[in-house]
């Protein structure tokens, strides 16, 4: 067991937690302790180093939910059921009154506790995802979103997780469980944000989503965090018959950010739509791994990820599609396009297809490029400066995906913040390809 695994277990021992989560925590702790620490030869971690975690010393829990730092973080303007967490601590004053069906684990009634116990840690395979095992070991607070059969949640649920600089690096464990019964519908926005102060801190987040027959979820995971934060997260989804998961994810910031999407097609006619954007710059590292398990026939999945990697940043995209022998008539598409804006930026992209059924349609593509010279010239020939043209084209590259975001408030929040990322294009001018 490595030092960090040990430290994490010690942190688990410091938590005060409800007795009904004890079994999950115990199981998580032993899986975590037994897990082999990923190295360069571990296939799903080979492109990034977890060394920053091992170097994250004096990690501790935050003692209180900090209002002051919270003011430094702008939230999405949205009429929503809002839950605000600061460094993993719930902030009641900044959160909404919660309707039935949305509850913190700490406040769950007996029935809800039973529901949580039934599903929590069951969608995710913690033997394969060691940080899910850690999340189980750290299970304490969290949010349950439960929509009964045939019901639709009137407003989106908006969970804001804010990290702020503290005297010592802070650990935060975020846990969400979504249970949609048959024909139910809900929208969930998870927003990971931080103040601008760079400091080592570690967020381990895990969302499990159970989507019943013909139920539908619209899910967002927005990660806009400061430079040095370490964040490992996962979204694990089970789709039953005709269930639909529409996801959008965006990542910027962090010395180490690893996000896994695992979607299990368990019922015929299930559909996944997942769009993602990653924008590492400076020395940031962002790693997306998606894995779609097509276990049954007639399911469709469509994933589109785009990244712009600048400065000395690094990105990884690994998109796995696994079509099981009985999953005939599967339609699976995966596209990953990357734009490198500096000589020292790095992208590792790998579509990974395993197809064991013969009557399927599966398309995938990955590209790595620089800005199109002809487009640049076209803009300049209309009087636009090279710097502005680079900004417009870079933003345009991801704007295609932003335009498809169904929640207008999310678009309105992201657009100016992302444009401003490209707002100092002079840094990019003179880099490779644009001389």
């Amino acid at each position, binding site marked *: 067991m490595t030092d960090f695994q040990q430290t994490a277990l010690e942190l688990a021992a410091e938590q005060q937690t409800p007795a009904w989560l004890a079994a999950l925590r115990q199981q998580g702790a032993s899986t975590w302790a037994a897990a082999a620490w990923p190295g360069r030869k571990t296939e799903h971690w080979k492109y990034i180093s977890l060394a920053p975690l091992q170097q994250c010393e004096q990690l501790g829990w935050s003692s209180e939910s900090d209002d002051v730092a919270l003011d430094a973080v702008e939230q999405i303007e949205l009429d929503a059921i809002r839950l605000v967490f600061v460094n993993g601590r719930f902030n009641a004053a900044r959160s909404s009154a919660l309707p039935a069906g949305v509850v913190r684990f700490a406040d769950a009634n007996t029935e809800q506790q039973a529901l949580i116990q039934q599903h929590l840690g069951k969608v995710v395979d913690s033997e394969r995802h060691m940080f899910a095992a850690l999340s189980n070991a750290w299970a304490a607070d969290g949010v349950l979103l439960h929509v009964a059969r045939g019901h639709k949640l009137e407003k989106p649920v908006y969970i804001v997780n804010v990290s702020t600089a503290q005297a010592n690096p802070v650990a935060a464990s975020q846990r969400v469980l979504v249970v949609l019964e048959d024909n139910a519908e809900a929208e969930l926005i998870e927003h990971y944000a931080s103040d601008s102060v760079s400091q080592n801190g570690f967020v381990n987040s895990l969302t499990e989503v159970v989507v019943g027959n013909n139920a539908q979820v619209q899910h967002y995971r927005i990660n806009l965090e400061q430079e040095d934060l370490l964040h490992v997260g996962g979204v694990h989804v089970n789709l039953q018959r005709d269930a639909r998961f529409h996801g959008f994810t965006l990542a910027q910031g962090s010395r180490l950010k690893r996000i896994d999407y695992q979607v299990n097609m368990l019922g015929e006619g299930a559909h996944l739509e997942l769009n993602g954007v990653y924008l590492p710059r400076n020395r940031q590292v962002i790693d997306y791994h998606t894995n779609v398990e097509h276990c049954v026939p007639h399911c469709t999945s469509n994933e589109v990820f785009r990244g712009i990697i600048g400065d000395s940043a690094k990105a990884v995209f690994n998109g796995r599609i696994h079509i099981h022998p009985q999953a005939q008539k599967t339609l699976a598409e995966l596209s990953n396009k990357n734009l490198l804006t500096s000589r020292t930026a790095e992208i590792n992209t790998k579509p990974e297809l395993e197809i064991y059924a013969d009557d399927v349609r599966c398309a995938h593509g990955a590209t790595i490029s620089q800005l199109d010279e002809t*487009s640049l010239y076209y803009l300049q020939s209309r009087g636009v400066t090279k710097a502005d043209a680079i900004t*417009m084209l870079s933003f345009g590259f991801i704007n295609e995906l932003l335009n498809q975001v169904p929640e207008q408030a999310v678009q309105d929040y992201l657009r100016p913040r992302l444009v401003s990322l490209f707002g100092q294009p002079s840094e990019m001018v003179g880099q490779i390809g644009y001389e």
Partner: protein
Amino acid sequence: MMLNIKDLHAKVEEKDILKGLSIEVKPGEVHAIMGPNGSGKSTMGNVLSGRPGYEATAGSVTFKGHDLLEMETEERAREGLFLAFQYPVEIPGVSNMEFLKAAVDAKRKHQGLDEISSVDFLKLARETCKRVNLDASFLKRGVNEGFSGGEKKRNEIMQMMLLEPDLCILDETDSGLDIDALQVVADGVNAMRDGKRSFLVVTHYQRLLDYIVPDYVHVLAGGRIVKSGDKSLALELEAKGYGWLENEVV
């Protein structure tokens, strides 16, 4: 003098294309440049607009008294040179509206004016759409994204109208256009002929010149002008082809 090209030599990818091109264009004049495929017509437009990779190796180009070849691509545009592309570029993700406003604002900034307000610009852009018979919904779409050939060409003319350049170079704007679209393009150009603005109309076909009547017609072959005349030369070319001029190429 609007444009004075003197003995211009240019190469593309190490290949000499223009070999001593000379043309003088005065304010208000319309010059048609015709010539066979590979004669250097498009290269001329690209060199004049400052496309990367198109390198002038000898000769001079003066635009409104300035040394054009010394200017950056965007400076040329702001000084009033406009090239309507033969193959307009599709840029998904950048809306046509955003693109047009950036172009107009770049020019206004150059003239010492404030940026145009979004409301005023929208009004102007909608009116201009109407002039080239494009639905205003094209403003919201990505630049030329999924536009038909004719729509792309009309979009070029719309940009020309918005930017009000002093010198317009139309690079085979008529190619691939049906007769209705050709009429729209020609009407747009003719409406902009105000006695001061000059045009270089590069075309393969005489047909366009029935609609946009030139003051001069030049034949470009082998990288230089081999014959000049008035509009009757275009008709002669239509009847006889270019073959009879090939002998004049050095």
